[in-house]
């Protein structure tokens, strides 16, 4: 592992010597390890490819997963340079343990949308339909962020939801809609955009479901310069465009 890193460094150093001054971020090299929320899989994969293209010799390695699992991995000493969380609470968990360097910044916001199977067979129009006992409804469990956001939406709408299942993550909810097993569900807007197999319905109470995505360089980063450069890339105009296309709001 260390030998490999050394080889990478030597190769990168060699490249730098050949094309000195030609690179945009001359100080950035080696491997950048990014721990990112599962909902960022598509966007960050694209941004990582862009970043590698802009910084020859740099390799971006991702570990996508649930934000709380990633936070626990980082606190247990997993080697990471950057953490991008789907919820401020998980960033706080890492921050409280002294794991982040500097301050976390919000780089994206997501909001809930109603997802229905193609053609909307049950004729769902809004949150009120989630109280209908005949409709099959899937929601996230309250323990995970999308479930907590759904709860806020129903409180704002004054609707008592009657779900048939409380799933362990938002992708599991989306699967139930794609397969037509449920008539309606609440998922993130980015999840609706990620597939052509479901239809999205916006609802006014969605303003109460906005959640912030913070990003921060980590205190134990092996590649601090790479971490900062990657975060700058995510927050650049190009990064914001990719995020917006996927359905995120960008501050």
């Amino acid at each position, binding site marked *: 592992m260390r030998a490999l890193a050394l080889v990478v460094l030597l190769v990168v150093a060699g490249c730098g010597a050949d094309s000195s001054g030609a690179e945009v971020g001359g100080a950035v090299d080696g491997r950048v390890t990014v721990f990112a929320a599962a909902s960022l899989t598509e966007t960050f994969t694209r941004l990582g490819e862009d970043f590698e293209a802009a910084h020859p010799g740099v390799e971006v390695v991702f570990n996508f997963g*649930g934000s*709380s699992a990633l936070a626990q991995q980082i606190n247990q000493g997993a080697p990471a340079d950057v953490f991008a969380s789907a919820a401020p609470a998980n960033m706080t968990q890492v921050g409280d343990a002294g794991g982040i360097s500097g301050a976390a910044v919000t780089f994206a916001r997501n909001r809930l949308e109603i997802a229905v199977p193609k053609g909307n067979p049950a004729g769902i129009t809004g949150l009120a339909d989630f109280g209908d006992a005949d409709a*099959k409804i*899937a929601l996230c*469990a309250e*323990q*995970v962020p999308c479930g907590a956001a759904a709860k806020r939406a129903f409180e704002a709408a004054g609707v008592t939801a009657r*779900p*048939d*299942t*409380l*799933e*362990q993550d938002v992708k*599991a909810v989306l*699967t*139930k809609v794609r*397969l*037509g*097993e449920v008539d309606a569900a609440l998922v993130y807007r980015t999840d609706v955009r990620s597939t052509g197999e479901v239809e999205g319905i916006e609802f006014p109470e969605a303003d109460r479901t906005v959640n912030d995505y913070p990003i921060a360089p980590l205190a134990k980063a092996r590649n601090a310069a790479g971490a900062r450069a990657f975060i700058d890339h995510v927050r650049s105009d190009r990064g914001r465009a990719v995020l917006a296309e996927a359905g995120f709001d960008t501050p």
Partner: protein
Amino acid sequence: MTSARRRTRGRLPVVLVLPAVVGLAFLLVPLVGLLVRAPWDTLPEQLFSSSVGEALRLSLVCASLATVVCLVLGVPLAWLLARGDVPGRGVLRALVTVPLVLPPVVGGVALLFVLGRRGLVGQYLDAWFGISLPFTTAGVVLAEAFVAMPFLVISVEGALRAADPRYEEAAATLGASRWLAFRRVTLPSILPGVVAGTVLCWARALGEFGATITFAGNFPGETTTMPLAVYLALETDPDAAIVLSVVLLLVSVGVLAALRDRWISGPS
């Protein structure tokens, strides 16, 4: 003669003992970790909270029902694989083990494709009988049975193949039908294998997570079994998750130990 026997019984070879001890430690140390980290002071309180009791009851009921389903379908299937003159038996035997290698989540999706509301069979169940299996306790039983049945079939089939078929043949020459011979001769002779398979099957069903949450979803009192409750508790309250795991552990070890003493009386 006696000294030779003593020698083979006496010293245990280090090449076997050393890896055996490492293997034992490998299996038991994570368990110890769980027990050490368990918040014992809040354990009774958690144990008697309604949600834990509900999940535990549901887990025990569903695993037991799934085991019954596996016994009713799996023992005849094992018999067919071991004794029946079916063409392509080797392929069938391999296919039966598919749920063992399939990630359980994929098994759950496959069940949805077949028994879901829009599934190959499920759409007719829904249209003709108004039966919808996903998100129901029956769905939990099905998902667990799907994942656990290979354990039973493999154990019983192994026992059948090890059993001497001449007893059945003798019964047949005495005028017993194959069904009577199976009931009165074969089944009693392979009982230890059936019990071992049943225990494995029940244990696997009890711990089932992936296929259950995918096919049956998660709703307290309906489909939230202990493993699902553990997974969700881990999101917000790791202590509660550990308590739930320890409870599941104690109950399953207790049941398995009781069954072993009662049924599997091997040389000790």
